């Protein structure tokens, strides 16, 4: 069966520090991968998606970037965090032609 792992679960970082969140999927190959952000009291916003290694599409201009160095690995990064980057970050995966999404357990990021 397929599983999705996200870490860390919680993170408190000072303004201006770098960020790296990691997401890995097991039990499938060539998944579509996504990063979403949920700001406090708000809905979920699609940040990035990827259909393959090295292929990244950005949905919203921001202080973040994403990379996909391996087929089942998706990384969310920032060089310098802003207060507005605080939120709940969710990784998700899907398969083209299979109309379902599975979400990871999320990372709660607080920028102080």
């Amino acid at each position, binding site marked *: 069966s397929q599983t999705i792992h996200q870490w860390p679960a919680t993170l408190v970082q000072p303004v201006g520090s770098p960020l790296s969140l990691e997401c890995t999927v097991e039990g499938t190959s060539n998944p579509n991968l*996504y990063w979403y952000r949920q700001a406090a009291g*708000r809905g979920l916003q699609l940040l990035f998606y990827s259909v393959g290694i090295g292929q990244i*599409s950005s949905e919203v201009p921001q202080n973040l970037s994403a990379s996909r160095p391996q087929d089942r690995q998706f990384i969310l990064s920032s060089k310098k965090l802003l207060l507005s980057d605080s939120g709940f970050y969710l990784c998700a995966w899907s398969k083209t032609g299979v*109309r379902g*999404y599975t979400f990871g357990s*999320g990372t709660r990021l607080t920028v102080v």
Partner: protein
Amino acid sequence: ELKVEQNPLFLSMQEGKKNYTIYCNYSTTSDRLYWYRQDPGKSLESLFVLLSNGAVKQEGRLMASLDTKARLSTLHITAAVHDLSATYFCAVGLYSGGGADGLTFGKGTHLIIQP
């Protein structure tokens, strides 16, 4: 730009008293509508995937339906019980070039069911 609107955004009710409906309207033609549940501090749990006009799915006290012509989905709650308290999101998918299909979410309906 695809817009997804949910209402109400907040719903409070007593256990077992009445039936309630959450509405989800979307602005662009789509054939895939998703309902998710989120407990406080937790990730999203998939409830229903609706893929065709007239689709109806039921799980326990929850029933979801889709009208693609009206661009409307509903999540109906029957005789609510406390463990249904959560935030419920609808989300709509649109194909983008290449096969990835990012979701656009509604703002969520915060449901509180009091014993």
